[in-house]
């Protein structure tokens, strides 16, 4: 995700990670390889993106300013009405190829970026978990596939918020 910033440390990381990635980097042009595996190769926790109070800004920070285009090839499952905002089951599956990461954003939460999952080659582009929602909001799924961003969203009505107190 943050990999586009500097190709040198990333390439070094790829070399350190060893295995098939090294073989790929050896035969192909380095940059496209680095892009394709960006999400899997950079292990840093994207703290600034998680601290953001604005959903769009969080995505911008996470993906270096790239914009996501809407895609009907992403399936985002979440309840239409969540009685308990503290535990909202959310799953994302996509038929897009070369998926390297999946991020979930809840724009109405105090910190909208909820999770970002990095999927190295060989890991299926599908993830399920449970999120907290402060109030009724959309949930936005961002899928990074082949170095591009795609998104879909879904409205979830929350009757009891998960961040209250």
């Amino acid at each position, binding site marked *: 995700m943050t990999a586009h910033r500097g190709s040198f440390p990333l390439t070094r990381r790829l070399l350190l990670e060893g295995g098939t990635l090294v073989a790929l980097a050896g035969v192909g042009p380095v940059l496209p390889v680095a892009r394709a595996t960006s999400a899997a190769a950079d292990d840093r926790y994207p703290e600034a993106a998680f601290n953001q109070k604005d959903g769009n800004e969080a995505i911008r920070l996470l993906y270096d300013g790239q914009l996501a285009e809407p895609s009907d090839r992403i399936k985002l499952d979440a309840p239409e009405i969540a009685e308990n905002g503290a535990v909202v089951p959310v799953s994302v599956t996509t038929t897009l190829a070369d998926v390297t990461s999946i991020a979930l954003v809840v724009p109405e939460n105090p910190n909208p970026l909820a999770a970002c999952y*990095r999927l190295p080659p060989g*890991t299926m582009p599908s*993830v399920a978990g449970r999120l907290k929602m402060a109030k009724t909001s959309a949930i936005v799924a961002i899928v990074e596939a082949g170095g591009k961003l795609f998104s879909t969203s879904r409205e979830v009505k929350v009757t009891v918020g998960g961040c209250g107190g």
Partner: protein
Amino acid sequence: MGSSIRVRAIANSEVTDVQTLIQHPMDSGFVKDDKGEIIPPHFIQQLTFEHKGRKVFVADWGTAVSKDPYVKFSFKGAGKGDDLKVGWIDNKGETDTVTVKIQ
């Protein structure tokens, strides 16, 4: 004390399905306790799964992941009896790891 991590990894021919449940408060820092004092943030930031020294799944989490987090994913390339190493680190620097056999 037992591990905070419970993992079930089942290999079905080519694909291994992994389900994980972790005991963790996942305090967001936005909630007040009974006395009206803010409960400071305490949440897992990164959860990593490794198979044969290779990362197969990395979750970066913020404060919006529910208490006692659950996550499910699948990956290719593993077989029954292989080790799967699971580890997390939270915002206070606390960690836990466990290695399980894929069934």
